[in-house]
């Protein structure tokens, strides 16, 4: 990456470098059967015209099939959140693309948003609406109306045991209750793909345990779940496959056994450290 400004923007050089590397990557064929597939996802942030840009995520490719729980692990700043934000269309990839539930994140972001349930610490609910109003609002935007909407709202309230506070405003609920409402919001339209960005962060032990149970239940119901965490025990318990991200690059993808085999380590924390050290050279 060039540091000098030589007539073209410094970012051009960054893009060239990233692009040439992306072109060397072998084509991924036959991925249409997957619920989620990321193809060379790259995100570059730039502050100002002369900024050469910060490559937050570079050439990340992976695929997840139906009913699979895919874990993205990595240290802070590795690019987990940026990758998930690209998959959920909050951010547009600078290079590369992804298909989520059959829709392209670049070409049909609205369809992607209608097919996913995204949950993270940054996706809190509107505090001045009650739980029921929130669910109705999301339901209407997903195209439900009348008795169908009412039925779905009631079902979610029952399933998550929220009767006692369904008509209370979210600003008056505890963190755990609000998190339940948030889960309800992600499930209301029964999306085939769930994207969870550090879903247990900020929760107490009981809340975190409930979240883990929720992910396990989603897998049983055939949902594709992609979730990022830096709590290795959660990943060890839940994930069918794991991707290790470091400095914006995906260094390894595989099941726990495959990663054990590759590193020669037994436990996930040892596997993770070994792969991170390997990535850092």
């Amino acid at each position, binding site marked *: 990456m060039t540091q000098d400004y030589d007539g073209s923007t410094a970012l051009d050089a960054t893009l060239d470098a990233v692009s040439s590397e992306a072109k060397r990557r072998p084509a991924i064929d036959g991925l249409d059967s997957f619920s989620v597939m990321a193809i060379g996802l790259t995100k570059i942030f730039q502050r100002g015209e002369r900024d050469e840009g910060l490559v937050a995520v570079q050439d990340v490719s992976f695929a997840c099939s139906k009913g699979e729980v895919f874990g993205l692990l990595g240290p802070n700043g590795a690019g987990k959140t940026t990758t998930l934000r690209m998959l959920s269309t909050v951010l547009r990839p600078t290079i590369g693309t992804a298909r989520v539930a059959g829709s392209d994140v670049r070409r049909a972001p609205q369809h992607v948003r*209608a097919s996913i349930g995204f949950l993270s610490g940054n996706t809190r609910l*509107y505090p001045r609406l009650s739980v029921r109003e929130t669910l109705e609002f999301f339901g209407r935007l997903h195209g439900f109306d009348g008795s169908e909407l009412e039925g779905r709202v009631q079902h979610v309230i029952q399933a998550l045991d929220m009767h006692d506070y369904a008509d209370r405003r979210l600003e008056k609920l505890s963190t755990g209750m609000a998190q339940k409402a948030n889960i309800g919001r992600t499930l209301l339209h029964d999306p085939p793909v769930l994207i969870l960005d550090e879903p247990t962060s900020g929760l107490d032990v009981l809340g975190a345990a409930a979240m883990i149970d929720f992910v396990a239940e989603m897998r049983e119901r055939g949902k594709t779940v992609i979730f990022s965490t830096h709590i290795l025990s959660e990943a060890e318990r839940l994930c069918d496959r794991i991707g290790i991200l470091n400095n914006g690059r995906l260094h390894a993808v595989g099941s726990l056994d495959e990663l054990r085999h590759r590193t020669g380590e037994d436990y996930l924390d040892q596997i993770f450290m070994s792969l991170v050290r390997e990535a850092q050279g």
Partner: protein
Amino acid sequence: MPSQFLNPSLRVYCAKELRSLLRDRNIVVYGLLLPLFLYPLLLFSISELRQLTTGMRERMEPTIAMQGLPELETHLHELVPPPRTLPLTGGAGEALERGAADLVIVRAAGSERLVVSHDSTSGPSRIALERFGPVIEAWRRQAEREELVRQRKWVERSDVVFVDASVETNSTRELLATLLPLILIIMCTFGATWPAIELTAGERERSCAETTFLLPLSRHDVALGKTIAVTAAAFTSLCVHLFAMLVAAGPLLAQIRGGASALPSLAWTTLPIVLCYGVLLSIVFGAIFLLVGSYAKTFREAQAFVTPVQLVMMLPAMLTLLPSAELDATTAWIPVYNAGLAFRAALLGNIDLTATATSLASLSLCALLCFRTTVRRLSDTAFALGFADGDRLRERWS
């Protein structure tokens, strides 16, 4: 644009934003409760102030200009405290307008009638009339009785005639036309401020912005929804102000003028014109405050950003107080200022169709520009997540 307004998802989103806004205490206080209580409170304060100033009124020494009438002058000097008197030079109206006298007493040409002129728009002149009007009448009756005794026959003489010599007789309307535009514009800025901050920095501070950007809506719809919601909130607040003001205006003006003063009847065109400007002002203020608020990360930061802008927006409203300010071919092009002047012209019934049309066109253009800029900014990921990204490079790359 019309098809976008029919979009059911956008309607659902706008309804949700408005519902959230109407549950915000700041917005309810500043946008709805303040207008309802402000004017009665103002009425009460002025009434109290009047009582407080009664003592000051009694200590005041009015000046009376007279033409001839030495007997009356002597009589007035016998009063405690006596008024200042001076000979009248020029016309009565001129003396009152210059402020040389608070009351002018002359004998009507070719008769014995006394004409007492005062200026109802001047406080000291009204006080002088209240204090000396009855004295002059009593003196006149006494003079008639003395004449009767002296001549032993009834001498027909005309009474004292009181004349309001203020240049503009409909001063209530003038006062209303001066105050109303200023108050309405200032209140419209308040009505837009809180909702705009709430839907930008407030949402970001509560970590709801990303949730909004994950809704199955286009970014443009989200931005449009926010702008419409803030405009609607600002316009609602303006309407509540108008209603409260119309209810309280009669008694309020009576208090200000120190006498019974009914609300002047307005032309039927006044309200539609005021509402039309109100909608456009709501769009301008709503869009500008949303734009400014979108650069702030926290509610406090947004308040700090918006306050100077708010003051700048109020400046044109304050300039409408200048006596020389009026809606003409030039001022009609200055946004906000033209709305204030048009309000005033509408209230005074001096509607110049060309200037009004020009001002509406200018304000509409400004509103459209602000609306588009704001919608573009709010559609940007940088607003949603609070940081700049490389989005604008996408087109070049692909």
